[in-house]
């Protein structure tokens, strides 16, 4: 597959975040693996088969869809999937749960794929859906 140079993705880029949640690892795990709970924070609609090789589908209010495959499932400890935005290079998401007293430290690492087969991002794809998502979640939890 031949792409113009400008569409080559850079490679091995990595984003990592860590947050301490006021919930036990089991509760956090439910929020990571149940469709209805995932729809409260990951995307507007989520379908996940939480087993290796299972499918994950995220749908956003703006009509965007992100599909991927679950790669790793260790209950209440680790979950990983690969997904891709339409027309973009795939990336891998890994979620790691650590029990801290009664709470849970959740670490997320997203890594762009090594040999990018497309642009990492299509400009402006996500800002509008994300703003709508945040607004929707605020309404749900209000």
């Amino acid at each position, binding site marked *: 597959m031949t792409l113009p140079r400008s569409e*080559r993705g850079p490679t*091995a880029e990595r*984003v990592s*975040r860590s947050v301490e949640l006021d919930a036990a690892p089991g509760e956090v795990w439910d*929020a990571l693996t149940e469709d209805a709970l995932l729809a409260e924070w990951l995307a507007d609609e989520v379908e996940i088969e939480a087993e290796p090789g299972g499918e994950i589908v995220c749908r956003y209010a703006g009509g965007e869809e992100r599909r991927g495959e679950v790669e790793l499932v260790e209950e209440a400890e680790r979950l990983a999937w690969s997904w891709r935005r339409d027309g973009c290079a795939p990336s891998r998401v890994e979620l790691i749960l650590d029990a801290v007293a009664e709470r849970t430290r959740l670490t*997320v690492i997203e890594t762009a794929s090594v040999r990018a087969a497309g*642009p*990492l991002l299509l400009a402006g794809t996500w800002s509008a859906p*994300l703003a709508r998502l945040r607004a929707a979640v605020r309404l749900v*939890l209000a």
Partner: protein
Amino acid sequence: MPQLLPQPSGPAGDAEAGAVFAALADPTRRHLVAVLGAGGGATATGLAAELPISRQAVAKHLATLGRAGLVTQSRRGRESLFQLDPRPLADAAEWLTTVGAEWDSRLSDLQRLLDAKRP
């Protein structure tokens, strides 16, 4: 002279794993990027004249930068002209910023969800 760099029309697969950040991990290559960025383009001979290393060593570093997509090569007379292409850097920075912001937003929503579920 053998072709040092893939041409711009070459296949996408010639960009190597981790190439952008790996290419910039070396101080000599960072210096080359700075020189090329300031000067608009240079030959390997011209670059070697500005640095305390051989033309051959310069050519090797330019090839690494080329595989990362950071440097392009074109003919000028009998020599090759090397130019900086900053787009891979901009792409990498944009990805880090956007994906980081996505997770900040999602994790704060997750935090709110779990807080709301508490008795």
